[in-house]
């Protein structure tokens, strides 16, 4: 049924730390590796070794450059590169679920995971239109909609060692930038992390109420003064001397 549950018992989701993500794309690869050979249809590639290659991914890492505004203490602040991994945010008010005409898309009452029942999916693509985050991709080989399952086949899987019962991307991340847990429980580690670091929603104005949270980059450290006496020293001459000084003056006169 594609009407959304009024509330879910848990809100399982990810917390992604934009401060520590190094943009290595390991989560992208491990996600594709796990999900292409487990739950549902494989994640196909088209023309994988050709010039115009593309494929289905459930998780992609975008990189942005942010130019801080000039301030009196920092006249020319350095631009920052920030990597933003993006997958399904398992929204509480998921617009992708309600548009589905067949009931293939649904949000689970027990843990809030948004899933696609692939045997009911007609591949109309409307759910991908409704998602503001680009979290859903129609697999070109299977003709069904693919999306992050929060590794539903790992997190409850008792055949795996306990340490592996987290989404593949979280297990793989070498910089500890991805965290998994119940964001509906305010005492969970992930909820505490969100509270402490000021976790945020992506596109809050879209009204989707995403469960996944992003931790903003911490402010950059300011370089300390090298020497306490430095302000008292005579400034280094800015005017060129010697040959360069002569060249400067001569060219100036021309």
């Amino acid at each position: 049924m594609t009407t959304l549950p009024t509330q879910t018992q848990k809100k399982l989701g990810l917390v992604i730390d934009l401060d520590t993500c190094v943009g290595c794309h390991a989560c992208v690869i491990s996600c594709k590796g796990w999900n292409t050979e487990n739950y549902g249809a494989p994640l196909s590639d088209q023309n994988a070794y050709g010039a115009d290659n593309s494929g289905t991914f459930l998780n992609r890492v975008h990189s942005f450059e942010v130019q801080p505004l000039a301030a009196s203490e920092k006249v020319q602040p350095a631009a920052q590169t920030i990597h933003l991994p993006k997958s399904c945010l398992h929204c509480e008010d998921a617009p992708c679920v309600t548009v589905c005409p067949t009931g293939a898309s649904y949000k689970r009452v027990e843990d809030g995971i948004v899933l696609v029942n692939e045997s009911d999916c007609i591949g109309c693509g409307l759910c991908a239109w409704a998602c503001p985050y680009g979290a859903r991709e129609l697999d070109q080989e299977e003709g069904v909609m693919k999306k992050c399952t929060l590794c539903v086949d790992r997190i409850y899987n008792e055949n795996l060692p306990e340490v592996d019962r987290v989404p593949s991307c979280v297990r793989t991340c070498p910089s500890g930038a991805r965290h998994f847990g119940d964001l509906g429980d305010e005492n969970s580690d992930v909820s505490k992390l969100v509270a402490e670091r000021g976790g945020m929603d992506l596109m809050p104005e879209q009204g989707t109420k995403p469960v996944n949270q992003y931790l903003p980059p911490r402010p950059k450290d300011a370089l300390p003064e090298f020497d306490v006496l430095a302000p008292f020293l005579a400034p280094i001459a800015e005017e060129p001397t010697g040959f360069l000084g002569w060249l400067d003056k001569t060219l100036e006169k021309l």
Partner: protein
Amino acid sequence: MHPAPSVIIFTTFSGLGFGLLFWLGIDPTPYTGWTAFAFWLIAYVMGVGGLISSTFHLGHPERALKAFTQWRSSWLSREGIAAVATLVLMGLYGLGLVFFDTAWQPLGWLGAIGALATVFTTSMIYAQMKTIPRWYTNLTPAMYLSFALAGGALLKGSTAIALWLILLAGVIQIATWVVGDKAFANSGTTMATATGLGNIGEVRAFEPPHTGTNYLMREFIHVVGRKHSSKLRIISLLLMVLLPVMLLAAPFFSHWLALLAVISHIAGVLATRWLFFAEAEHVVGLYYGKR
């Protein structure tokens, strides 16, 4: 948005077909016999043809029957139900007119309501998309309904009504463009809200997730098509509104001129429908630094 031929053809012709069915349904002095058959044939070829064309872009058309189940939440599901109900009702009504020379008028009225409901539900599939600010407006259903009514009246041969409805459709189309051009900026969704990084400074897309393209970029980012949009807007208005109105108002109006008016109108509607998709920008493009 990618202007897929299947959806452009579907929305144009099913709109015209169901628009014609509306006018056939409420006609107090309906055609009978072979004349009725000809009108019903045109309406069904357009309406059903449009619906069939819409299944061409499905990944699994063989499961299409499942799309009738989720009418509680899904406009696409409601559209399917409204379309089939209308086709059944109007089919029975047409049966009476063609073969028994009798008008089972209540069936016609119900069918007319169904035809309007079908066009409205189609338009709501687009108008509900908050992710596509240009479509997320009441003008979208107004535009679809006015186009269907105008085109339907033209096909039905109700020239006096058609003339005014075509003008109205043109006015609504212009309003849709004027409001739509500001919709993305007014939506409040920017690269800053998309990334949450706006409070640090100005955000710029630095590197995409991959060097190639992907499904999202093919489906939602269509920059090339907008290059000639202002020229196309003028051409489409000339074809959809101006030429048919001039022909309808001409004192020497004939069947051949009517055919020309219909062809010109349909060509114009196809052009505006192409623009409807090509000009629509999805917010996901912000993650790629494109719209």
